């Protein structure tokens, strides 16, 4: 039984790693008032670029660098559209996702023709710690990208604190752009930085999927994980630590589908896949605590007088 539990936990943490990365960036961006539905597209593009980079150079690290750049590029488009041109954030996000899906699927047809496995990241167990029963393998037997995910999530959670001026500035911009502007805060710059940060972390999340999880690129490899990252932010009620918990919870919920047969639980797999989304629906409909989004979320900034 404990072996199964260990399996579920380590699977959950593994699946939570890309979610953590993506939702860490998304959280910053939403706190600054920009809803990046395109985080799905950023991840997908990152996964594709990561896989392509790793294949061409033969180096997984180079692949990660490519993923980072690709994520940033999609984010730059999103930022120009939603911050400078003040386009509707939901429409631009969905459009960017559709574009990313089409482009990466087409690119995969051209590039990944032999179906061979890619240079990727292997697990790096930390001696002693990884021997701890139950949580040892889950927390201390991850890939380099997995550890990075936790480090990034922790750093952002810490950095978003209102004890720091930047955390405060991000919140001010997300709540009320006009007030922030009148305080002399660089509203557009902060929003650009927040969206680009999401691009970077989502790109890394994509690289994690392609290079640490699957060691290959497949069509629509993200399959909605980006949307799940957005949902994790909502379920975490726009606060850092609850969002981290939501990611871990969603990871474990996903891992359950693989472990269910082992414990003799014969629930159809497609039903299990829906668990995170059911939880998300509950969270959004207010059953899991009362949600309050930043007042300025999706509201473009214009210095009207």
């Amino acid at each position: 039984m404990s072996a199964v539990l260990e399996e579920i936990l380590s699977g959950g943490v593994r699946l939570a790693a890309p979610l953590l990365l993506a939702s860490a960036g998304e959280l910053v961006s939403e706190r600054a008032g920009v809803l990046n539905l395109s985080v799905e597209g950023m991840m997908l593009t990152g996964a594709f670029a990561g896989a392509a980079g790793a294949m061409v150079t033969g180096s997984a690290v180079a692949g990660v660098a490519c993923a980072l750049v690709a994520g940033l590029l999609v984010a730059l488009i999103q930022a120009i559209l939603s911050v400078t041109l003040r386009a509707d954030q939901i429409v631009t996000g969905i459009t960017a996702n559709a574009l990313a899906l089409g482009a990466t699927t087409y690119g995969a047809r051209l590039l990944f023709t032999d179906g061979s496995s890619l240079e990727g990241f292997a697990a790096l167990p930390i001696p002693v710690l990884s021997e701890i029963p139950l949580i040892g393998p889950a927390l201390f037997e991850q890939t380099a990208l997995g550890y990075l995910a936790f480090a990034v999530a922790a750093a952002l959670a810490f950095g978003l604190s209102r004890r720091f001026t930047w955390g405060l500035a991000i919140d001010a911009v997300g709540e009320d752009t006009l007030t922030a502007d009148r305080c002399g805060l660089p509203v557009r710059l902060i929003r650009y930085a927040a969206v680009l940060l999401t691009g970077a972390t989502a790109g890394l999340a994509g690289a994690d999927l392609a290079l640490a999880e699957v060691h290959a690129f497949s069509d629509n490899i993200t399959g909605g994980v980006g949307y799940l990252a957005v949902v994790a932010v909502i379920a975490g009620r726009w606060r850092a630590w609850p969002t981290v918990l939501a990611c871990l919870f969603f990871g474990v919920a996903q891992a359950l589908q693989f472990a269910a047969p082992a414990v003799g639980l014969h629930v159809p797999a497609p039903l299990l896949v829906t668990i995170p989304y059911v939880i998300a629906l509950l969270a959004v409909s207010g059953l899991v605590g009362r949600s309050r989004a930043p007042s300025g979320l999706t509201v473009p900034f214009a210095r009207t007088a």
Partner: protein
Amino acid sequence: MIALEIAGLSKTYGSVRALDGVDLTVEAGTVHCVLGENGAGKSTLCHAVGGSLTPSAGSMSLFGTRYAPRRPKEAIAAGVAMVHQHFSLVSTLTVAENLRLLRVGGLAARLERLADRYGLAVPLDETVGDLPLGVRQRVEIVKALLREPRLLVLDEPTGVLGPAEVDALLTTCRRIADDGGAVVLVTHKLGEVARVADVATVLRGGKVAGSGLTDLSADNLIPLMIGRPADDLAPVLAGTLGLSEVVVRDERAIDQAPVLSLRDISVTRPGGGYLLENVDLDIAPGEIVGVAGVEGNGQTELIHVLSGALVPDAGTVELAGEDLTRATPARRTAAGLGVVPEDRHHEGCVPELDVATNLYLGRLGEYRRFHVLLDKKAMRSAATAVIEKHGISAPGPAAPMSALSGGNQQKVVLARELALDPLVCLAAAQPTRGLDVGAVDAVLGRIRAAAAAGAAVLVVSSELGELLALCDRVVVAYRGKLSEAIVAAAPGAHDKIAHLMIGATA
């Protein structure tokens, strides 16, 4: 020493000239009042000085150096601090967090200095959204003074304050000027000007109508503001303009049984406590009852309970014997309850739709052809009649609401509610806010006429003088409770209400 010099400042929006060649000279060490009616260009001038908008023409200089801020940040860096008409504090952050957004060093020491010099102490750990408006205003002033500005500009800062808070604010302005700072106080209340200003400039229609004025009497200023002699000024206007002498309407005997009855209405606040607590209110046909009070003491919720936007947690709303507590807005309209909401842009109309549709949106059934088609022609001709009758300045019934000025939008909303047949009860929140002098007269006249025709009228306003001149009885909202009714014509009513507004027992 000249602190701020503005020369030939203009701002045009399309064909509209919001500012037209404005000159203004502000000396250091003085409080300079900029006066004007709504729409005179006062706020536009403030935004230009504060860097929120770029003027179309003209130049400014600050203490002798050229001054052309392109964004608020540059204005702040130049030593200009603004206190805006609408508060610019992030309501979800605490006071301390809002002040830290300014990134000034030695915050604690600066705060202490402000508290010592001006008596401006602020509750640092409270969330701004939970604070009464008067305290928020104080935080706003502290925020403006933290950077030790050379020029302080206040844009209609007293609109939401009670009498005692206005006094404190004016005293602070005076002290800042006495310390050598330059203060520009923008207002439309003449009473304040007389009490604090050294010099006044009057704007009218985007132009300077009078400058360097040191005779600050109402007789001198009103003609400049409204462009005609003050003789024909209705007594209610005197109240709206903040003049001390208010003519109260005669006491009338109301002997009919109440038609609108609120019984024991309570609305709980999400975080605990009450927005409205055990509110009882009766209004008889033909009676005008005013709700006075500093904004944010439950008036908004009271109107929402009447309009149906808010279902009270306890209590009942009865109109002519019918229980409307949980009725839909359509049911309320059919029962003859008209409501003019406080926020006309969001609750009173659909800005994107045309005037005719806004007038008849609730009564589309009366304008049908062949049962399914809308008779636009009939609707528009009916709307044209309303536009004429109410003196609404609009390009026509097919013009979108958003093309109308705020005052005219207000007239449309009021016209729609007054057109209810029968009109049993009219509830109007801040009916004259944002209206120019002529429009105030018209709107108040129509409210009086509605009462004379037998409607029970409830008016919520933060202008005490206006309420005293308009109403038979006035109740005061304070922290979600309503006071006993005070007869407006009774001696000492003004002082009694002013006391109740700040929570002091009269």
